């Protein structure tokens, strides 16, 4: 077995320096569109191109509701007037559910947070990005985040996927079995609003239909660093970003 030890040591340190420093490697995030000042006609045609209702007509151009964006690139590809695009990854926001005193974490959670991941019906993308957090590049253990298979040990419920009918009961049971205080982090466009699966005979939309959500991480899927940002927001170690980007913002960048 010694050859494996040597192999491990030879590989050296791969881990990102985030959150101490920004991560700049190529390919870590698909990025997101940015709001733009545009003539009305152009703005209208772009809004019509978006299949996820993520673009909204604003008095001076187009606003982006990042919560709904599914990275389909239709507002930047195959059009003569593409929207801008930025390669950020700090996308997580805090939502009102988090104001409840009972749900706040104390200092005991600063270096040890256990996370139960529940897939309520995704396509596997968000789930796979969550899994990447354990690979040596992201190595979330160094920040005190650990995945747990049981709700009894979990502090954070991380939900990916649209809420299918068949997952309602298991999700509720898992949440109820978690000790307090506990927080819910919804990851990905589907967990936020149902995403491309929407509301239908099988999907109720996002997880907020059933549980109080504290942190939302948009993206389809959000890249590993966006999910990590979401966890850091959940425990109060990073400030949240703002999800609705308007042309009227003086700085079109909410990634902080």
């Amino acid at each position, binding site marked *: 077995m010694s050859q494996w030890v040597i192999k491990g040591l030879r590989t050296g340190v791969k881990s990102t320096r985030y959150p101490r420093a920004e991560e700049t490697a190529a390919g870590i995030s698909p990025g997101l569109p940015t709001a733009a000042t545009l003539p009305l006609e152009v703005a209208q045609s772009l809004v019509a191109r978006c299949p996820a209702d993520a673009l909204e007509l604003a008095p001076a151009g187009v606003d982006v509701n990042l919560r709904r964006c599914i990275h389909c690139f239709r507002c930047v590809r195959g059009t003569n007037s593409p929207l801008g695009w930025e390669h950020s990854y700090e996308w997580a926001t805090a939502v009102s559910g988090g104001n409840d005193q009972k749900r706040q974490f104390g200092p005991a959670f600063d270096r040890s947070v256990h996370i139960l991941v529940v897939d309520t019906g995704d396509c596997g993308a968000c789930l796979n990005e969550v899994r990447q957090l354990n690979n*040596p590049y992201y190595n979330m253990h160094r920040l005190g985040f650990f995945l747990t298979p049981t709700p009894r040990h979990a502090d954070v419920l991380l939900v990916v996927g649209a809420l299918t009918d068949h997952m309602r009961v298991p999700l509720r049971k898992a949440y109820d079995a978690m000790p307090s205080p506990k927080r819910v982090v919804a990851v990905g466009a589907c967990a936020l609003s149902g995403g491309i699966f929407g509301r239908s005979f099988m999907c109720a939309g996002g997880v907020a239909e059933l549980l109080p959500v504290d942190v939302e991480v948009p993206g389809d899927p959000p890249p590993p660093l966006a999910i990590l940002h979401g966890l850091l927001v959940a425990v109060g170690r990073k400030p949240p970003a703002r999800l609705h980007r308007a042309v009227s913002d003086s700085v079109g960048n909410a990634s902080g």
Partner: protein
Amino acid sequence: MFSDLHYSFGGLVVEQLTRWELRYVFYGGPGAGWLHVLTHLAPSDYRVPSVSRLVHAADWHEREVEDLFGLVFEGHPRLGDFVLHDDAWHEGVAPMRKSFDGRQPVTHRAPDQNWKPRQIVEEAGAFLMPIGPIYATATGPVHFQLETVGEDVIRVQPRLFYAYRGLEKIAEGRRAEDVLLIAERISATSAFAHSLAVCQAVERICHMEVPPRARALRIFVAEFERLRHHVAAIEGICESTGLAVAAAQASILEEDLLRLSCVLTGHRYLFGLGTFGGLTINLDDSACNRAAAQVREVAEKLSRLERMLSISSSFLDRLEEVGHVSAGEAGDFGLVGPIARASGVSRDMRKAQPYSGYDQIEFEVPHESEGDGYARLRMFFREAAQSVRIISTVGQAVPGGQVRAPEVSFRPGAALGWVEAPRGAALHWIRLGEDGVVDRYRIITPSFANWHGFRLAAENFAFQDFPIILATFALSVHENDR
């Protein structure tokens, strides 16, 4: 009869036209083409003879149709609880019927909190172990009923469809372009493969020519996706045996390939790349060359990993002669992809029914004969090496010209599109009405076929082997459930 003619069962497509149409799709080997067997029923009729005694691979297809369309397959040994879970859904709901409005929520039974699986094994000391749908860390939702006697698992029943999102239904009435968004989200790790199958079906209906550059780049990207999938599968197998360093090494390679996908196409899972008539963006020659060079680096690391694994005896002990599936079983159950090939059933759409120009490229479809966990692991390594070979060949000589045909003009009609997705054959049937509006979208996935046969591998092995056997099958619940 069909297997005597060397035709394999591809899947069952049911359509509610002026009358019921049931289309049993079979495909032959190279040069043998497709065989569609049709039967029709009056609109008010709902009884069909089951074929699953003759064509066992049709077993789950019939169960699905019974659940979703309300047709009854007479003589089928086991209909009932399948896609729609009995503890939540009222009897008689048939969501795939045209009269059912898929946009509205459905009122259910009050969910039965005390639902319990049925115990079948009655031997002394028999024990039923329910696992899931939430189990282990970060897994897709599936429930297993393992019936054990002592150490051994005697019977395995997966209860699936917790991630059933009703994709076939919600596609109806939408525009063909939007079906691409759905296809990419059947299973993210095979997103490009599924979107390619949809593209090919629509291109067939609309008589679209795909420019040579786009055809070549589609192969380039499809093989790239296969490589990434196989690396992830290898990682899963290492992890299931507790070989942490090897799993970490493979996961580094997976992340490298995800990043490379993002650099090359803008998205880590290749979303938004496929479109009717080609690709949405051009991948220029220098980008392809750089990507191919990086892929070769990954390949080198991968073969070093393979060499190290092949001399780690404690690792091999967990895989060899474990989770065995014979060639006969794999054939009968209609297993596909690397799982079938590990048992010596060499089905591959790229050779059997070539598309996008695969017939002009030199590559091999490796196969093994043992059908155990180690054979499946070797398949992932050997196929990954072939993908690297294809990426290198295609990347060196991408023909010039456009990457997209001029604007598509939709016509009404129906067609099948198929690909060899990373996990095996994927068949997509699309019927378009006027103006490119989708009337029927049928998705037949490799995970659906392989989940059907998974119990062959897992039964009669020790309980501790179960997670390892599961990992060697590289199954996706998302791809199965749809």
